[in-house]
Every structure is written in C-alpha cells, then in structure tokens.
C-alpha cells in the first residue's frame, strides 16, 4: 500500500471512529444512558495491539485471534517485496558470475598440471559436502517453486499438473530439510577448526585474493574467500533450519505472528543463500581449473595446491615426508 493511499484510508478510518464516538454522547430513545458507553471499539484495540484477541468457547483456542491486519502486510511482503528481492539477488548473481567469466575468464593452474596428486578431502568429508549440496539444490528448487512457480511454471504446465508438482515439491522440501541439517552439522564439525580467521586471511584479502591474475596470496587449507562462504553458510543454514523447523510444526512454540516472522526470515535468508551458493558453485567448477576435483575425487594436482593453498600444502608435505625433507619439496 502506498503512503498516500494509506493516508486516505487512515482519514476514512478516523471518520468511521469519530461517528460512533459522537453517538456515545447521545441518549438512547427512551432516555437511558447509551448502552455502549463502555463498549470496546475495534479501532481502539488495534491502536493498542496489532492483533485483537478474546475468549473463545470452542476447544480450538488457537482460533481466539479475531483480527490480525498483519496478514495483509505479510501478503505484501510475500507477493511484492520477496518477489523483487529474490529476482534481483538471484538473477543479479547470475549476471555477475557471467560477467566474471567473460572478463576474468577461467583461473588456470599457471604452472600447468604436475601429474602428481595430493589428497585434499577424505571420502567422509566429500560425503558430508555432497549430502549438504544435494539437499540444498533440492530445497532451493522446491523453495523457489513455492515463491516463483506460479509465475514461471503455472502458465506453462496448467493448474492441475502444476498443483501435483507443487504438492510433491512441498513434501520433498519438508523431508529433505532433515538431510540438509545433518549435512550442515557434519560440515561444521569437520571444518570449523580450519575456518577460524587468521592473520594470513587479512593479507589474502589485502592482496586481492584469487581475483588478481598471475598472483596468488598465501593461504592455509581454506583461504579467506572460502572462510567467508563457510561462515555465511553456517549462519544462513542455521537461520533457515531454525525458521524452517518452526514452520514445519505450526503452533509448537509459535503463534501466527511468530510464524509470519519465521517465514520472512526463512524466505529472505534463503534467496541470499541461493545467491551465495551460486557463486560457490561457479568458483568450484567453471571459475577455476583444478578446483572441482577436490570435491570430485578428493585429490588435487600438486601444482594447484601449491598455487592456491601453499601453507596447507607445505604442512601436508611435511606430514607425509617428515620434517627434514619439507623444505626441499618447496
């Protein structure tokens, strides 16, 4: 609702309130005091609280909320704000990544492949990553369907087929969420110690990280960029998990106001999360030569490791060959 419309409505509202107030001063036709002298008015109640609640006789006490105009505000968020924010953030990220690919191109291994491999991620680490990744893709697509499906797919599929798809997508979203939560917990447990920010990360950012061609800033197992993705994924993952669980179990610890807030948090964080992961996918596949195999086979080329994660490589080399020969590897 635009501001001028709101002002006009407010004026109409005020008039509607004013009339009964004047009537209150009057006497009933038989001369008695007006029986509604103490009567509660809807407008007064709505000025005091955002929702009007009362007592209800039926056993379903959740139904005791009489009027909650916030429903219309949530409608505005869902249909206007979320559509705009979601489209801008996600399409904007796709455009940015497209530009990055056209302008910066693929980051090659500058020394070429050495043919020698070094283990970067164990099988269990890869399992944890792909559990989270696969469930994230399913959750992202089914979640976007709830918000954008009726704009994009409904006209193409027809209402009946789209409804079946949306129903299926809802169940996928509800159940796969648990796989995502498990994956997220595993990822955090496995990698949190290597993601604690250190001095080397500040230097990495100062030197422009991996974005300046032909130059590689020193980095440990994870560079500052990866650490940002890690902490953002942890924060966003926790936010969507908690808000999602609240929505999955309506009225368990929530009321309608809390569910509206949970949905707003869930949706806004989720679109930002999708944009972040799009960038993560880009760098892990198209954006950088030799990066995907870290999560694919678990082994990376030694030259790639030296270029992108020199400090980690030295440590690994030291561990495998013993302290004496570490310097000679370098």
């Amino acid at each position: 609702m635009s501001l001028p419309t709101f002002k006009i409505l407010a004026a109409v509202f005020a008039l509607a309130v004013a009339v009964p107030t004047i009537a209150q001063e009057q006497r009933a036709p038989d001369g008695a005091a007006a029986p509604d002298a103490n009567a509660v008015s809807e407008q007064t109640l709505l000025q005091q609280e955002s929702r009007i609640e009362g007592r209800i006789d039926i056993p379903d006490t959740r139904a005791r909320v009489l009027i909650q105009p916030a429903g219309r505000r949530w409608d505005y968020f869902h249909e206007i704000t979320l559509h705009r924010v979601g489209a801008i953030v996600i399409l904007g990220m796709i455009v940015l990544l497209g530009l990055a690919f056209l302008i910066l191109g693929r980051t090659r291994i500058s020394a070429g492949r050495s043919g020698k491999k070094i283990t970067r991620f164990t099988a269990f680490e890869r399992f944890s990553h792909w559990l989270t990744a696969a469930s994230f893709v399913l959750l992202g697509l089914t979640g976007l369907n709830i918000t954008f499906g009726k704009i994009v797919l409904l006209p193409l599929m027809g209402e009946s087929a789209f409804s079946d798809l949306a129903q299926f997508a809802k169940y996928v979203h509800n159940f796969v969420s648990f796989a995502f939560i498990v994956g997220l917990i595993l990822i955090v447990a496995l990698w949190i110690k290597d993601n604690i920010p250190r001095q080397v990360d500040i230097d990495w950012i100062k030197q422009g990280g991996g974005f300046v061609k032909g130059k590689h800033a020193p980095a440990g197992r994870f560079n500052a960029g990866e650490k940002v993705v890690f902490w953002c994924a942890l924060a966003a993952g926790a936010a969507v998990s908690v808000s999602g669980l609240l929505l999955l179990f309506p009225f368990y610890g929530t009321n309608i106001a809390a569910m509206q807030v949970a949905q707003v948090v869930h949706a806004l964080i989720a679109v930002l999360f999708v944009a972040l992961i799009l960038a993560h996918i880009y760098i892990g596949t198209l954006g950088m030569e030799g990066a995907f195999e870290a999560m694919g086979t678990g082994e990376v080329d030694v030259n790639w490791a030296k270029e992108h994660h020199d400090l980690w490589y030295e440590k690994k080399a030291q561990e495998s060959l013993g302290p004496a020969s570490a310097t000679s590897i370098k």
Partner: protein
Amino acid sequence: MARMKFLCDADRCIDCNACVTACKNENEVPWGINRRRVITINDGKPGERSVSMACMHCTDAPCAAVCPVSCIFSTDDGVVLHSKDLCIGCGYCFYACPFGAPQYPKIGNFGSRGKMDKCTYCAGGGGTEVSGSIEEYKKYGANRLAQGKLPLCAEMCSTKSLLAGDGEIIAEIYKERVLKRGYGSGAWGWMTAYKEGIAS
C-alpha cells in the same frame, strides 16, 4: 451485481454460538474444523463485546494473492472460493488471512496439514464439481447461494446480529440500526477486509 459481505453487529451478538453450530451442521464440516467462531473481547469487563467471525470474503483477498498454486479466487459475487483439488496444504493462506479463516484438517501433523477448508459463504466450492452436486457438497458443503439462499449462519442468527447479503444493503440496515438506537461499535473487520468502514 451483488457484492456479498458479512457484517456482525457486535452490539447485538449474545455469544450463543448458534451460527457456529448451524455452519457445522449445514456444511457437514470435517471434525475439528470451525468455519465460523464467536470471540468475546474484554470478557467479563464492562463493555465486553462478542463478534462472530468467519472468512470475510475480502476485497483483494490476501489468501488468494499468496497461494503458491493460485487455487483461491473471488467469484463475480465477491465470494472467495478455493479448489481442494489444487490446494497443496502449505499454510500460506493462514499466515495471510486477517481473520484466521483457513483451517486444516491435519494442522500440527508435521506440516502436512491436508486440504485447506474455510467458509464458502454457503456457495459450494471452487473446484470442477457441478454446482449443487453431491460431490461438491461432500468436499465443500452446501451451495445455498445457487438456490437463492443466504449463508445459514446469518439466516438463523437469533438476534439478527450477523448479517449476510449484498454489502450496500447490509450496510444500510446497520446504519439504520445505529441511527435508531443511537449507538454502534462499528462493523468489525470491515476496514481490514473491504478497506472501507460504514459511515453512519
């Protein structure tokens, strides 16, 4: 063309819950669902008021706007109907509804909810069933409107507190009442539902 609305004259409602019972009986509403309910504000205090509330069949209905499968719509009479064949039970209409009208047979059951149910203004359903058919009755309840009758809740209200019918006509009845008795606490929910009050 009529614009169907509900109006509850809170100065007449006596919290007898006959409208709730009438609705349940007329529409064979599923167990646990109340399409209409009566709420008492300031219970036991001077000036307490009871209001009978169901779906208000809003102008620019927020439930219809947020539905991810667009299964909710307004008829030419301004009645908000939905198709249970298309509904996926996501609960969004419940978040958006200012009056708590949408109900779910399985609420709390791990978000599965089942097909949404709400007041149909005794106008049958918004699905593909033939108007007035037994299939429509089983899924959505009575279609009194097709028979030229108004919703039973309002029709059998003992104090004629609850009014149903064309918005202009019921607003006129309410204005006359306020004028004659000298008071009125306003048409509850009208600003939120229809974006207009009743200026008497």
